[in-house]
């Protein structure tokens, strides 16, 4: 009995120990998961002493921009897709410091960061007017500057906005003019052909251009990924074109095309097409204040040069920071395209030579001959693919110029086709001949049954351009004080090239005939 009691006590003890251990584990776990205070972890951090920075000259917050002093305000206006970064280096160095061979002027540094770009020219002009009447006006008052001394320097679409603004100021009952003069660079007052041709709902030529390039350069027989330039702006393509590129090039599209077609689905493009009544009206209107227009005339091949400038737009920051007019070199992709054309020609010739050897070896019999035939066929395919790629590099410039209107087909109805029936028994029943006058297409024999049709002759005309806008459009504005050519300068360069520096120097020196208004003293 005692023995049994002792055994029961031992069992109770072991059971109690077991239950106790389990209880401890459960309690421990529950304490670890939810029971611990939230500040346990932070309590483990080392205590930190407050050591906030105290400026020696007292506290000051950057609550507003300040402006340099000066005799006038230069308002710099960017183009489509741009912002204050487009002009800021030139604007800053013009207001102070200057640059190599470019003295600073007594002008106030300020510029709008941007203006709305999702609307019409009118909306954009309203937005700029709002800036002029608020931020800019307060600065003008502070600096005791007459707003009529201020000048707007506008690039590309900005020039059209400036002209639109100028036209709004004709309505003195609604608007108060806040501008004295306008300088435009590369603004297509007679319309921008590219806007019509690149419009997905218009000419839609961008897709054809890109797809052709993709198909020719992505041929598996010749494709070499590491030979292609990595063009970082390409991901910013408009969605419509993006999808076309993706379907034609697949994932390779991002590295193929040295070209950007951003923003050409923006609503304002409808208003800057050559056929737009608004741009036609602006292009025929005499500005209400002194206006200088500058236009670029880029050297050939314009496509590869503007592509270089687009490519380099944000990659030459260091050079531009030192000299804002140092964006002259646009040869990189010209050299690249020539090298690629030569390389593909070498591939073609090598493939052809190898193919000929295989054809010669295939004159025997058996599987070996078949193998040689197959090899020859593959090499000939490679030669054709290489020829197409070479052809693309050689002709991309011509295709591109057709998109921007730099190369146009013109038709002239010079004379007439005369179609007459030959005498019975002739090899061909009819003969087509050319006659100078419609009345010359006669035959006394009614059997001849001559028919006259107008004959059109085509010719290709090359138009000066800056790689995007035609010189004839950017340089034609009735009533402008002067139209100034920027030789060897493309649309992207014309804000930051050495030619631009010379242009601004002459304008601010008052050296442009009739442009005394723009003379601005140096600091």
């Amino acid at each position, binding site marked *: 009995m005692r023995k049994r009691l002792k055994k029961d006590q031992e069992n109770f003890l072991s059971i109690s120990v077991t239950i106790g251990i389990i209880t401890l584990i459960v309690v421990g776990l529950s304490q670890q998961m939810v029971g611990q205070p939230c500040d346990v972890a932070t309590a483990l951090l080392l205590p930190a002493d407050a050591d906030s920075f105290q400026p020696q000259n007292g506290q000051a917050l950057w609550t507003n921009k300040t402006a340099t002093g000066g005799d006038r305000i230069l308002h710099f206006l960017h183009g489509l897709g741009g912002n204050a970064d487009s002009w800021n280096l030139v604007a800053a160095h013009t207001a102070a410091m200057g640059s190599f061979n470019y003295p600073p002027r007594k002008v106030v540094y300020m510029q709008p960061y941007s203006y709305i770009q999702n609307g019409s020219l009118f909306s954009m002009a309203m937005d700029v007017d709002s800036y002029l009447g608020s931020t800019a006006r307060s600065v003008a008052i502070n600096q005791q500057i007459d707003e009529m001394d201020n000048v707007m320097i506008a690039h590309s679409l900005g020039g059209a906005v400036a002209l639109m603004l100028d036209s709004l100021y004709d309505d003195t009952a609604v608007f108060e003019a806040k501008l004295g003069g306008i300088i435009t660079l590369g603004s297509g007052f007679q319309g921008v052909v590219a806007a019509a041709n690149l419009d997905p709902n218009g000419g839609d030529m961008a897709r054809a251009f890109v797809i052709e390039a993709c198909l020719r350069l992505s041929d598996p027989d010749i494709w070499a990924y590491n030979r292609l330039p990595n063009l970082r702006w390409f991901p910013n393509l408009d969605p419509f074109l993006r999808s076309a590129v993706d379907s034609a090039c697949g994932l390779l599209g991002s590295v193929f095309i040295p070209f950007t077609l951003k923003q050409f689905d923006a609503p304002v493009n409808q208003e800057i097409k050559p056929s737009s009544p608004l741009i036609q009206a602006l292009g025929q209107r005499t500005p209400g204040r002194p206006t200088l227009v500058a236009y670029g005339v880029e050297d050939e091949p314009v496509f590869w040069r503007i592509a270089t400038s687009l490519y380099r737009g944000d990659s030459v920051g260091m050079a531009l920071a030192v000299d804002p007019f140092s964006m002259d070199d646009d040869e990189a992709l010209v050299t690249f395209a020539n090298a690629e054309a030569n390389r593909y020609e070498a591939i073609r010739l090598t493939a052809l030579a190898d193919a000929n050897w295989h054809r010669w070896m295939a004159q025997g019999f058996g599987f070996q001959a078949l193998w040689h035939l197959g090899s020859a066929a593959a090499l*000939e395919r490679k030669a054709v693919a290489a020829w197409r790629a070479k052809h693309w590099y050689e002709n991309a410039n011509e295709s591109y110029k057709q998109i921007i209107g730099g190369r146009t087909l013109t038709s002239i109805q010079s004379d007439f086709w005369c179609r007459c029936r030959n005498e019975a028994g002739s090899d061909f*029943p009819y003969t087509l001949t050319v006659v100078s006058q419609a009345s010359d297409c006669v035959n006394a024999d009614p059997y001849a049954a001559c028919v006259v*049709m107008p*004959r059109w002759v085509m010719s290709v005309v090359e138009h000066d351009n800056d790689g995007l806008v035609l010189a004839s459009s950017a340089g034609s504005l009735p009533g402008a004080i002067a139209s100034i050519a920027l030789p060897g300068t493309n649309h992207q360069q014309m804000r930051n090239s050495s030619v631009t520096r010379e242009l601004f120097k002459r304008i601010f020196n008052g050296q442009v005939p009739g442009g005394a208004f723009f003379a601005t003293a140096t600091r």
Partner: protein
Amino acid sequence: MRLLWVGLAGLTCHLSVTAQANAYWEQRQCTWSATLIHANAETYMLDPWDLESMVMKQRCVIRTWQLDGGKVTASWLPTHDQRPEWMTAPPTYVNQGNGIQWQGVDSTEIIQTSSGEGLALFTPHILPTAAEQAILNDQGMLLQPDGAGRLMGQMGQWTITWSSSPAMVQWQSGDSSLVTTYQSHPMGWYVAAVERRWPRRNQQGLCMVDYMLSQFSKPAGMSWSNHQTWDELLVTPSPHEQGPVTLSLRSGDSLHPEALTVIDVQGRVVIKRTKLPSLPFTLPYLSLTPGHYRMQLVLGPLILTCPFLQL
């Protein structure tokens, strides 16, 4: 196969026929096409493709067709009217053609084979359309002196007009027209010309007329199903001496051979030339070592063979 020596004047060779073909014909087709617009039309805003289409273009091809029992095989072969490069190049470069040219537009070759109902589609225009054939057969209009007629409302909106001199049928509907001109041939009527006008509006709304004139030469060839009308190839002078030789057909027909080969006694092809002009043409000297050879000229299913001795 027979071989006739005509002294030093040349060779006369006879043909052999491959497969079951029982007729082979060729026709030269030239097409002129352009978009017509009014002489005073405003062309400033025309698209480039519209402008380009306004230029009259001419394209010629060799149409061939061969009958093989119930089947007809039609081909559209490129013409090589200009002397091929190898005819003027040194002989050592004969076999080193440019691969690009072989695969370019110039060498576009279309071959289609069909039978039954497809026959009319592929047979060159020697067979008129069913409606036209009915006019030709039932009325005999084209065979009557100064015959002419007019059917209106019989073919939907189309008005059909025909005449016998010249032999032609015109389909007219508004500004659209299709004029088919026929000429006679020992084998029957063949279409000698098709002239079409088809108005349309371009994207700017300008009215334009697509104009096309296709003309077909008299069919040349051979048929040997019932009565043999084999032609003969003449090679003058005999190629047994080095020097240029002229190849022609005794009938004077201008057929377009696909290939010319020279084979030695071991059966090896020592010369093969394609992109040939139409017969007759002159070959530069063949540059062969002395020995026995066979010259073969391929015309569709026909092979004209000439054995000769190179001295």
